[in-house]
């Protein structure tokens, strides 16, 4: 009983300031195109990110077709293969995952979960989306310029990124760099909004430690992004200078195609340091929101409070901090000082401690929970498996001596796809199945959802498990064709073909998911306001879906943390955050 009703007499002091003035759109365009409503902006971000993500998915099919059946497709040549690799990687990491987690889920969930009417700067929020869209269009434009998009690999390492002979070394790389600069400017606008909204616009009673872990994950990831993206911006601008103005920031004195180029004194390794100072936090910019969301999914669908809430928050913050001192583990083969390698290997292994702590806490939350095998729960459990697998191979690659022989093989591709592609995308799917009801007022089809999960989950393992073996066998990554290589067994080709078939099946099944999204919007079972019995504020709105302003006439007042599930002494197995102690129905009650 102690947990149900603390004996405060439901005291809620008056708010210190009045409510924010909301922007009220009068036209269709104002409401849905140039919208300043975070919920609409979230959908705009999500549709754009998923749209460009589908392009990247098709690019991955093309790569896989080439690897499985070399020389069978006339439209895939070595240059276009490298362009597919580059665009697939860049789109998936930056333009899909970062934009979807922060711009999509961040915009939708932050104001609702902290009890705010909207983001604190709605106009800046709107501009943020349009700058992001411009960045996407600039990137897409590179498919249509002479020479096509950049084929430098998603890391864009100089000098080869801007040397003639690399695909897209004229227009493609310029558009890529300008697009990245736009993305970062747009993100900074959005990111300022997310941080200030979490810190300044929480409703009454919503202290930082009463925030759901989803908000903690998105908040910390946003802080990381705000501090890490400047490194990418700096490197993009410096490389643009090298391309357009002839400076030599990253370009050493170099002979290319028999000609001495007009560069001297640049440092390619400097680019690598700047890129990975951004690149490693980027892993956690994607992972931390996923950690937060999956924590909430597990808690809600296991009907149990999250195990070790405080530790989970600390782990998020500590992982965020450590992510800034591990970057050079991506550069073990760059010829750096061995003492640096030792330092970065150590910090890399230390980061496994808070990460493992989170995994244990997810499992302990499931332990003896009243587990509901809903579709979001399937995806959450799938995430735990996949993240553990990807994390364990990370321990291999974090060690210098093991990384050096594996660094340029398919083992690395398998590792980072498990940990950074499949794991977060499983969370994205779980989150969409979970939060689709408050967005639409309807449930997604359960049978289609379970079919989608099993094919995606099993299919992903069919793709990436064998890829680890290819890596051990020495199959290099980024190669258009292996050719006649003695040390690679012929069976590697059969394995490559099976991986491609699995990839095509997993890709096609996503159509079922898209169909489910559209079909359920019109024909899905009505969900009511809180179908999963969740405690957080986004399920306690006056209307479903919530209208502009989110909470009707008055903002909710929060009386408890976000994880009051299966509370002893309470009749219901959940107590929403905005239910005051006096309104909690005790289990002895007959009503």
């Amino acid at each position, binding site marked *: 009983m102690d947990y149900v009703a603390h004996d405060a007499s439901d005291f809620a002091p008056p708010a210190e300031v009045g409510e924010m003035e909301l922007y009220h759109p009068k036209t269709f365009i104002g409401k849905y195109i140039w919208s300043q409503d975070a919920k609409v902006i979230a959908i705009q971000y999500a549709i754009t990110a998923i749209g460009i993500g589908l392009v990247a998915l098709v690019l991955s099919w093309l790569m896989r077709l080439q690897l499985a059946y070399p020389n069978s497709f006339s439209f895939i040549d070595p240059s276009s293969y490298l362009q597919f690799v580059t665009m697939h990687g860049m789109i998936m990491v930056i333009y899909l995952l970062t934009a979807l987690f922060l711009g999509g889920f961040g915009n939708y969930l932050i104001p609702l979960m902290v*009890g705010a009417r909207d983001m604190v700067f709605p106009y800046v929020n709107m501009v943020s989306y349009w700058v992001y869209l411009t960045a996407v269009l600039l990137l897409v434009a590179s498919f249509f310029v002479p020479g096509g998009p950049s084929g430098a690999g998603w890391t864009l390492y100089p000098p080869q990124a801007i040397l003639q002979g690399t695909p897209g070394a004229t227009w493609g790389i310029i558009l890529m760099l300008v697009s990245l600069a736009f993305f970062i400017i747009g993100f900074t606008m959005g990111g*300022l909004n997310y941080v200030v909204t979490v810190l300044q616009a*929480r409703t009454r009673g919503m202290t930082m430690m009463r925030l759901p872990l989803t908000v903690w994950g998105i908040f910390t990831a946003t802080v990381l992004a705000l501090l890490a993206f400047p490194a990418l911006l700096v490197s993009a601008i410096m490389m643009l200078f090298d391309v357009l103005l002839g400076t030599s920031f990253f370009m050493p004195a170099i002979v290319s195609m028999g000609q001495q180029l007009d560069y001297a004194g*640049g440092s390619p390794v400097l680019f690598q340091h700047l890129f990975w100072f951004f690149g490693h936090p980027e892993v956690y910019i994607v992972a931390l929101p996923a950690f937060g969301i999956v924590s909430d999914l597990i808690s809600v669908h296991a009907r149990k409070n999250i195990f070790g809430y405080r530790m989970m928050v600390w782990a998020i913050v500590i992982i965020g901090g450590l992510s800034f001192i591990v970057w050079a583990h991506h550069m073990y083969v760059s010829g750096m000082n061995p003492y640096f390698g030792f330092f970065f290997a150590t910090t890399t292994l230390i980061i496994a401690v808070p990460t493992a702590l989170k995994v244990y806490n997810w499992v302990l939350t499931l332990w003896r929970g009243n587990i509901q095998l809903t579709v979001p729960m399937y995806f959450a459990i799938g995430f735990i498996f996949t993240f553990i697998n990807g994390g364990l191979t990370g321990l291999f690659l974090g060690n210098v001596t093991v990384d050096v022989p594996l660094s340029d093989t398919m083992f690395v591709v398998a590792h980072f796809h498990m940990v950074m592609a499949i794991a977060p995308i499983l969370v994205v799917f779980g989150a969409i199945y979970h939060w689709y009801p408050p967005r639409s007022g309807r449930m997604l089809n359960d049978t289609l959802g379970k079919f989608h999960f099993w094919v995606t989950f099993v299919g992903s393992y069919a793709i990436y498990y064998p890829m680890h073996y290819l890596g051990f066998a020495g199959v290099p990554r980024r190669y258009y064709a292996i050719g006649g290589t003695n040390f690679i067994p012929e069976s590697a080709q059969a394995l490559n073909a099976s991986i491609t078939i699995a990839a095509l099946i997993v890709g096609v099944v996503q159509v079922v998911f898209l169909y489910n999204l559209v079909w359920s919007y019109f024909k899905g079972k009505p969900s009511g306001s809180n179908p999963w019995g969740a405690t957080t504020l986004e399920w306690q709105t006056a209307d479903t879906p919530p209208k502009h302003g989110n909470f009707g006439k008055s903002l909710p007042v929060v*009386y408890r943390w976000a994880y009051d599930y299966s509370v002893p002494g309470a009749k219901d197995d959940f107590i929403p955050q905005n239910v005051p102690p006096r309104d909690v129905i005790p289990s002895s009650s007959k009503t």
Partner: protein
Amino acid sequence: MFHHLMAKPWVTAQGKVDDLYAGGASSALAKKLALKVFLAVVAVLFFLLVTAYGSRMAYEDWRPTPQVNLLWANTLVLILSSVALQWAQYSVRRGRMDAMRVGLLAAGAFTVVFLFGQILAWRQLGTMVYFDIRNPAIGFFYLITGVHGLHLVGGLVAWGRTAAKVWGDFDVAKIRQSVELCTTYWHFLLLVWLVLFGLLFTGDNLDILLKICGIR
């Protein structure tokens, strides 16, 4: 923050404390915080540029940027613009609107002069015999001064929006806030410039610092 992170939100006693949190924030507080967060982002940007400069300096073939003496005069002008904004802030807080207008306009004028001065410095460097665009030090000079100048141009947009509102009837509280935000921004960019100028563009100060640290 540490105090917040130690809280146990599931405990009854903590619930009583948490219930006292009044929530909500004024738009003024939100803008102040947003500016602080933005300045942190900008600080990281310049920190990375200085670090990149320093790490490139550690190479044997480093050739420093030739001295451009005009930068001393430009620095003085930027200090004056910051002083003028400080004067504007001081005046608006005491209700002296005419003095605030003078301070605000003077700050804008000094800033424009500073930016023209920087362009002139670019041209001076371009005409020197030492000029070689392939020299990373010279590339850094144009890059870093350009990025700093762009931030000032962005500041001028906010300054322009404020300056346009200080004629006729206006909401004093709002103008006071705008002037305060502009002042913070200008002081920050002045501080950044002093660090850049002191470390990178005058004398061998960064070189000395790196030697003290044993990096060079």
